[in-house]
């Protein structure tokens, strides 16, 4: 038995791994390199190929998907736990820098996700980018992303994780600024890069602190040390853990570092689907899963703060999706909100819950983005005020989009229901009852804005130009391919039930070294599941009443940028109606009463709720996001500007003065370190 397996079998709860080697495990490293090879190949020969290098990118990911699927199935049936590393460098006598690949439940889930969703999105992108510019560069950068992401998720230690982390950041920067002819897109790319860099400082510092404390960067060793309550690790666990979380906040767009993600929608839609919804932004959640034992056993003091940040993100940012007109921004705010769910669950201790939501979310959010891409492709606009009534013109896009929306909203029995329920259960079990209710409220908001998006895009009358057509098969087939897992994959983790013979998601992830403090509920909690489902249904019903059903509101759709105006108009209309009902006096008192209840009480509850939610949304967007968060950012910019004007007098342009300053500074530092400290 290997070292890992001994640890795994000794630990309580841990599931024994049936597979610790063999062909698929030993060669899994191929997955990590293939997309990078594809990247270089496309750069070299992509321009001259028929599909501008898409063949290479898709081929690489198709082979990878084979590995991902085989490993996934092997892990389902037998459980896989292995790790291959190669020593690259040695610092001092015992700090070793290794590269390699970990093959365990967590990384296998991500291998499957990145490769399969990636393959589907790549195929879709062939259709989406058909007449676009720089297609070869698009697929090259996309392959670079896939490779870096696999390096990230396959990392057996923090150093390799950081390498992949920076790689995906670079690819993200390339692709957000893909249409660099427009300065706004370049700025969006810069913003994403800067915000992520700020967070990366936390990640790197955290990695250094934790790694030096226990003399290794290896995740398994780190987990074991945390499980054993190692002294040196315990001394730095809170600081190191908080710094790692800060890094995760950047990549996973947690409040207040979420500001880059909506802007990142400047990139092509397949990029938004794969990177800024399904995989790259979940890297932070994945990191939390990798270092989970650290928070479980040593750094639990950080947890309430992490839960608070996650809760703010999931609710406050979700509200913003209500006032956005750009369909991709609606989905972006929704992604931030769902990442908030995952992060809250991970922070509260719901290891399986957070990762299961990551898993299902990847499918239905990628589906929604690809659907949005098909719509944008058809109407040549991102704005929902240019859409409407596309249900008839684009039936396949419509139905798959509805499936994705229902799954995201958490409707039984779609995937999103099971994963969101799992999070609520985990929050309740860990004692975060208030946060659990925020989660349920968040489920309501989610359903509400998704209903709005569906209604404004696909129902009512078309308000754009030209005649939109259904997307070609190369784009609709991927939609269907993503819709199936969005429906079915929730059954992987139904409480109290498991698919015969292969266990459930919790067990697949449980193949790991140290037991997590994770509690998977044995039976379904009907009250909790019911309230979650009820909140979602309420959101859909309310959203449908406000945006879908009533023909009279159709004309008002273009005024949604002014959210306070529309409910006011509606209220006036009801007052008139009421006055009509009373003065007409033709109905009996009971009829009048019923009419009054109907018109006044029910409708005003509906309207009041809608008004409140939307005002809150616009408040959060207008004051907190635009003025608060952006204000701080702008303030920092202005400060730097002022300091720059004062300091620029130092910039004489004389190289030798700079060199003299450099030499003098170096000498001063040496003197400082040698003689003073």
């Amino acid at each position, binding site marked *: 038995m290997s070292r890992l397996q001994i640890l795994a079998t000794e630990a309580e709860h841990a599931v024994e791994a049936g597979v610790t080697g063999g062909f698929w495990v030993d060669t899994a490293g191929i997955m990590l390199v293939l997309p990078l090879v594809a990247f270089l190949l496309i750069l070299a020969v992509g321009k001259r190929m028929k599909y501008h290098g898409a063949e290479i990118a898709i081929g690489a990911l198709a082979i990878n998907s084979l590995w991902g699927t085989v490993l996934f199935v092997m892990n389902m049936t037998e459980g896989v736990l292995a790790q291959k590393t190669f020593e690259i460098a040695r610092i001092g006598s015992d700090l070793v820098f290794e590269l390699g690949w970990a093959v365990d439940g967590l990384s296998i889930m991500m291998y499957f996700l990145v490769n399969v969703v990636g393959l589907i999105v790549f195929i879709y992108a062939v259709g989406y980018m058909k007449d676009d510019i720089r297609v070869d560069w698009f697929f090259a950068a996309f392959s670079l992303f896939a490779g870096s992401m696999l390096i990230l998720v396959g990392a057996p230690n923090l150093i390799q994780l950081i390498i992949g982390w920076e790689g995906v950041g670079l690819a993200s920067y390339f692709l957000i600024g893909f249409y660099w002819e427009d300065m706004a897109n370049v700025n969006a790319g810069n913003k994403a890069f800067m915000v992520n860099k700020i967070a990366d400082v936390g990640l790197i510092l955290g990695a250094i602190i934790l790694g030096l404390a226990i003399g290794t960067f290896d995740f398994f060793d780190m987990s074991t040390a945390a499980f054993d309550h190692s002294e040196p690790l315990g001394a730095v666990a809170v600081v190191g853990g908080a710094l790692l979380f800060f890094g995760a906040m950047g990549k996973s767009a947690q409040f207040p570092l979420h500001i880059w993600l909506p802007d990142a929608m400047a990139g092509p839609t397949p990029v938004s689907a794969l990177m800024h919804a399904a995989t790259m932004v979940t890297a932070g959640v994945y990191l939390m899963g990798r270092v989970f034992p650290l928070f479980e056993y040593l750094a639990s003091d950080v947890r309430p703060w992490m839960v608070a940040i996650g809760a703010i993100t999931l609710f406050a940012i979700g509200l913003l999706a209500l006032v956005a007109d750009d369909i991709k921004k609606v989905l972006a705010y929704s992604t931030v909100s769902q990442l908030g769910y995952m992060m809250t669950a991970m922070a509260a201790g719901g290891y399986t819950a957070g990762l299961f939501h990551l898993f299902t979310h990847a499918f239905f959010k990628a589906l929604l983005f690809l659907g949005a891409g098909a719509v944008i492709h058809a109407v040549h606009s991102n704005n929902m005020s240019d859409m409407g009534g596309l249900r008839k013109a684009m039936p396949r896009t419509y139905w798959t989009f509805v499936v994705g929306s229902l799954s995201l909203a958490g409707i039984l029995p779609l995937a999103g229901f099971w994963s969101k329920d799992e999070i609520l259960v985990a929050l309740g079990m860990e004692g975060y009852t208030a946060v659990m209710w925020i989660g349920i409220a968040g489920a309501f908001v989610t359903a509400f804005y998704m209903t709005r998006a569906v209604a404004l895009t696909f129902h009512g009358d078309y308000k754009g130009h030209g005649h939109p057509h259904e997307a070609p098969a190369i784009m609709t087939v991927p939609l269907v391919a993503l819709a199936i897992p969005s429906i079915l994959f929730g059954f992987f983790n139904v409480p109290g039930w498991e698919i015969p013979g292969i266990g459930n998601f919790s067990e697949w992830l449980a193949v790991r070294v140290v037991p997590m403090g994770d509690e998977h509920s044995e039976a379904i909690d009907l009250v909790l599941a019911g309230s979650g489902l009820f909140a979602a249904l309420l959101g859909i019903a309310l959203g449908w009443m406000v945006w879908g059903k009533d023909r009279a509101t159709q004309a008002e759709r273009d005024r949604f940028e002014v959210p306070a105006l529309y409910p006011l108009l509606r209220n006036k209309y009801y007052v008139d109606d009421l006055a009509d009902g009373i003065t007409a006096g033709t109905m009996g008192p009971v009829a009048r009463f019923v009419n009054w209840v109907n018109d006044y009480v029910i409708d005003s509850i509906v309207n009041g709720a809608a008004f409140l939610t939307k005002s809150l949304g616009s408040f959060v967007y207008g004051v907190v996001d635009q003025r608060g968060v952006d204000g701080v950012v702008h303030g920092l910019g202005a400060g730097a500007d002022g300091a720059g004007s004062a300091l620029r007098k130092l910039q004489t342009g004389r190289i*030798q003065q700079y060199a*003299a300053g450099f*030499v*003098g500074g170096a*000498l001063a530092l*040496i*003197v400082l370190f*040698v003689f003073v400290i």
Partner: protein
Amino acid sequence: MSFADWIGAPVNWVFLVVGFLTLLSALKVVTAKNVVHAALFLVAALGGTAVLFLMLSAEFVAWVVVLVYIGAVLVLFLFGIMITRAPTGKDVGLDSPNKLLPALLSGATFLLLGWASLDAFGSTEIADLGEATSTEVLGLALLGRFVIPFEVVSFILLAALIGGVTIARRDLSPLEEEERGAV
């Protein structure tokens, strides 16, 4: 080791002579009033270091210095001097007028480095040099343990080659291009 012991060893006499000449040449490199002279003094200074390398049994490196530096790099420098038409006669404008700060900084550097050496390696001796390091050992190290840095360095040289050509090549004006085409 007392001073008498030190001065008694003939190899140290060689060191004194070579070291003095090397430092003198180095001083002239940074003070010479004539650009070509400065470059030629660099030849002398590097020749001195090559002799020092031989004394330290680093034969291969010594000959690499002679071949690469003195043979190739210095020729490059002389070409650079000629092409930029720097005055080959005396030129007082070769140095910037403010020499105090550089002198102070360089003096401070010397004191700091010298103090650090004396403090750390007060009486460490280079004893029993024996055989010179053979080229075989160096070659095996270069293509064995250090093969990746070695390849990286070769890549740097290639990049420098291409970069140098790209930077230094002059784009022809349309008129000139036409003339070239006509010929």
